[in-house]
């Protein structure tokens, strides 16, 4: 049989929007043969087309950002308030204003191109420059022709809505990056190279035979070149050593500083006195290698932020209603008793009581639970919720900083940095190391003194301090851990710094949050239906469900899938947290919890007991459930983790998912439900009090306290650069099933560090054996130091490379 297929002409392109690439759910809007999913996308295309900016679409396919979640223009009214605007602006003179915005929507080359061509859209913009890695744009514009609000609106119209939060107010000015580190590294490298070159004759022993003058000339030049290294590049170590000493701690910079001081002092003395060539080459090499190691360690993920508190999410202004007039005021000036208006998609900045309007508060920001909660006039609204739907009015009962959510940040865990008690491995080692070295220097000095040679005693003691200077020791940690940090970043676990690796390698107990961590965050999910409603029942049920804006009602309405004419609904009644009921075409009908709707007939199946029932004329017609969707690979992950760690589960939710969770976790796992943010924090603290080292895996702001209190707090995020509370590490949600492997990589990193420490200590022993006998010549020092540094460098880099390669090979089978 032959079947001829006729190609459908516009099928494929009609599916996706020309602007944003989303699929067009309804009939696409066509313009110039190009399909658009919504009016917003079409408008952006029109604007760009008018200004001849369609190159935007040539640079990448579907570069646009959907405008469906856009706020209306009045959302930026607060920018007209000069007090607020002044705090955002980084520079202003009579005609020009410069401002920097964070644009999380920026994602491709087209974005950069369009944003840097803004001047073609609005002539008042004189310059725009994008920093893609930080997702920032700095704009210069003439404020007589374009207001700050107009500028933000322009960006928002294109889909690039700037994120302006409470925190930006304090940070607008001091965002300059510190570049002095690069200068120090450059100076050290420059001097290192030149001093080596000038010391070359000395290495080959050419000096002795040739006529005088050269040695002295080179010596003086070396002092000259070593001065900037000693005074400028090495200042970092002196400062750190000094601050360590004032805190009564011998950190790794103490022996380093000691070594540098002795190196410089003795070399200068030798050169000026004409007794020897000095160790200036070793000094410069030491400082250069150490700085390079530190540079390698300080890998930062530019667009990620690890220290966000609530101010990074809260709006900077609210709409205050005073004498029935609306006014934008800074959030910080809100007082208890003020009445404010919250519009669609706006965040509630402080606790208060709902006055009027239909509130459906999305607390996903706080709890991770995405289903909005319906609230009615007189209900208490907590800060951190997001209003969905029409605008509401509320009276505040507390100020922003005193609200329930924000009070979490007043907790002890946030007041003092508990990690100050944590001493890094190198510093712990350095305490003993320094004492031993000082002892050796003293004893060998005394020994030679008793032999009657003062100059030899000084020579030996200084040699000991020089050769024992823990260069390789100080390099192994930054090199190995810096490399591990990069490999983990490659596997989408982003760490705040290398110290986290040390902590991660030593954890004994893992605590999981449920909602948003083990489950998906979004509420777009399939609905399970039990029972077979008749066509008439579907019509009545769908008609009732459509009356409510509650997400469950909407999901039920779409599950019933009734497209025909709706029934007449009378006496509609909605009870918060219970359900809805009405008369539909003269039938009594209700939809809601079992006791509310009066359902009892059907057996509840599947996970959880949170069914919603449809009852018509006292007869239970159907039940609906929205099961939580667990991330794939959880069972395997938890099974692997339980062999090495104790596990716990904390959930802010009620325990309706307990049965489903027990299938995942080992039998005796403690599971705690209905946990408030402080409960979670207290639970972590109690684990720690019993000696456990805790890894907290969470996601929402309600986990912030627990993430902070735990030894390591990992925030799981579906979009790593947009949302995550303060934490030590951010894990891409898709990589959660590999958590055990990532922890193991951290542990392997620490083993490599220990191996490297042994290598460097053995080099130190060899050096010491020369030094105590008074045989340390500049050549030996010049060979020993780079050699030991190079060995640990190769050890650290090659070791982590192999460990990470092993991890990658392992991936396919274990991710199942």
């Amino acid at each position, binding site marked *: 049989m032959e079947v001829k297929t006729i190609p459908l002409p516009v099928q494929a392109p009609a599916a996706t929007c020309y602007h944003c690439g989303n699929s067009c759910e309804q009939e696409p809007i066509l313009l110039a043969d190009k399909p658009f999913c919504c009016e917003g996308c079409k408008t952006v295309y029109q604007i760009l087309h008018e200004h*001849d900016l369609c190159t935007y679409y040539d640079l990448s396919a579907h570069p646009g950002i959907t405008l469906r979640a856009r706020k209306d223009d009045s959302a930026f009214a607060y920018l007209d308030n000069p007090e607020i605007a002044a705090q955002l602006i980084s520079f202003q003179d009579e005609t020009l204003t410069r401002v920097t915005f964070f644009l999380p929507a920026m994602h491709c*080359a087209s974005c950069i191109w369009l944003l840097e061509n803004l001047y073609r859209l609005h002539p008042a913009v004189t310059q725009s420059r994008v920093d893609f890695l930080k997702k920032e744009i700095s704009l210069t514009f003439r404020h007589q022709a374009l207001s700050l609000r107009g500028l933000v609106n322009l960006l928002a119209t294109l889909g690039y809505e700037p994120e302006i939060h409470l925190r930006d107010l304090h940070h607008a000015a001091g965002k300059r990056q510190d570049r002095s580190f690069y200068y120090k590294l450059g100076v050290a490298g420059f001097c290192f190279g030149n001093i080596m070159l000038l010391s070359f004759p000395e290495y080959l022993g050419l000096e002795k035979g040739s006529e005088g003058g050269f040695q002295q000339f080179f010596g003086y030049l070396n002092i000259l070149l070593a001065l900037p290294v000693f005074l400028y590049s090495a200042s970092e170590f002196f400062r750190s050593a000094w601050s360590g000493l004032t805190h009564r701690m011998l950190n790794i910079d103490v022996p380093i500083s000691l070594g540098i001081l002795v190196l410089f002092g003795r070399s200068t003395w030798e050169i000026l006195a004409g007794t020897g060539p000095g160790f200036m080459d070793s000094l410069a090499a030491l400082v250069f290698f150490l700085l390079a190691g530190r540079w390698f360690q300080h890998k930062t993920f530019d667009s990620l932020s690890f220290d966000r508190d609530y101010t990074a999410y809260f709006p900077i202004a609210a709409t205050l209603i005073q004498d029935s007039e609306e006014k934008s005021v800074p959030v910080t000036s809100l007082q208890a008793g003020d009445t404010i208006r919250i519009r669609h998609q706006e965040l509630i900045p402080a606790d208060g009581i709902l006055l009027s309007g239909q509130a459906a508060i999305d607390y996903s920001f706080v709890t991770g639970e995405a289903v909005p909660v319906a609230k009615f006039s007189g209900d208490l609204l907590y800060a951190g919720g997001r209003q969905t739907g029409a605008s509401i009015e509320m009276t505040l009962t507390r100020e922003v900083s005193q609200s329930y959510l924000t009070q979490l940040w007043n907790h002890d865990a946030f007041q003092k940095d508990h990690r100050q008690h944590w001493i890094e491995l190198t510093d712990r080692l350095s305490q003993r190391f320094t004492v031993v070295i000082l002892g050796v220097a003293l004893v060998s000095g005394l020994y030679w003194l008793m032999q009657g040679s003062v100059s030899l005693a000084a020579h030996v003691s200084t040699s000991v301090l020089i050769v024992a200077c823990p260069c390789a020791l100080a390099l192994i940690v930054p090199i190995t851990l810096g490399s591990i940090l990069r490999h983990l970043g490659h596997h989408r676990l982003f760490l705040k710094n290398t110290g986290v690796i040390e902590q991660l390698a030593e954890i004994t107990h893992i605590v999981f949050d449920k909602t948003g961590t083990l489950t998906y965050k979004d509420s777009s999910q399939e609905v399970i239906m039990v029972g077979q409603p008749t066509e008439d029942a579907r019509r009545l049920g769908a008609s009732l469900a459509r009356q409510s804006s509650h997400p469950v009602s909407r999901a039920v309405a779409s599950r019933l899938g009734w497209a025909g004419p709706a029934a007449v609904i009378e006496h509609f009644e909605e009870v918060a947290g219970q359900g809805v009921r009405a008369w539909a075409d003269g039938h009594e009908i209700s939809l809601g919890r079992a006791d509310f709707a009066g359902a009892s007939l059907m057996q509840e199946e599947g996970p959880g007991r949170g069914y919603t029932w449809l009852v018509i004329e006292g007869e239970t017609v159907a039940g609906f459930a929205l099961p939580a969707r667990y991330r794939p690979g959880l069972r395997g992950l938890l099974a692997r983790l339980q062999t090495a760690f104790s596990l716990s589960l904390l959930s802010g939710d009620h325990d309706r998912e307990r049965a489903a969770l027990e299938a995942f976790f080992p039998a005796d796992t403690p599971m705690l439900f209905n946990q408030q943010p402080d409960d979670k924090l207290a639970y972590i603290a109690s684990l720690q009090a019993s000696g456990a080292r805790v890894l907290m895996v969470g996601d929402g702001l309600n986990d912030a306290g627990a993430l902070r209190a735990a030894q390591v707090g990992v925030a799981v995020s579906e979009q790593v650069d947009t949302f995550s509370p303060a934490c030590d590490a951010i894990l891409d949600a898709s990589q959660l099933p590999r958590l055990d492997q990532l922890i193991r990589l951290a542990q392997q990193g620490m083993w490599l560090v220990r191996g490297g420490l042994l290598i460097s200590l053995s080099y130190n022993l060899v050096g010491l054996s020369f030094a105590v006998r008074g045989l340390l010549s500049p050549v030996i020092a010049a060979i020993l130091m780079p050699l030991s540094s190079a060995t640990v460098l190769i050890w650290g880099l090659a070791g982590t490379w192999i460990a990470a390669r092993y991890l990658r090979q392992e991936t396919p089978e274990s991710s199942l």
Partner: protein
Amino acid sequence: MSAIFVLIIISLIVAAGFLTAFFWAVGNGQYEDDYSPAVRMLWESAPAAPRQTPEAPRPADTDVSK
């Protein structure tokens, strides 16, 4: 052999020149964003040319960029 004194001083001055160039590059922010310039160079000259829209010519740049 005294030429060596002169040559070494000259070589140091040349090397210092490169050090200055490095300082300039750092101060110019060239080590901060290493992604956007690579993209920017691909289109900077090309699409800017056809600007036939009847809008007023872009007002002369004031030298804020410096």
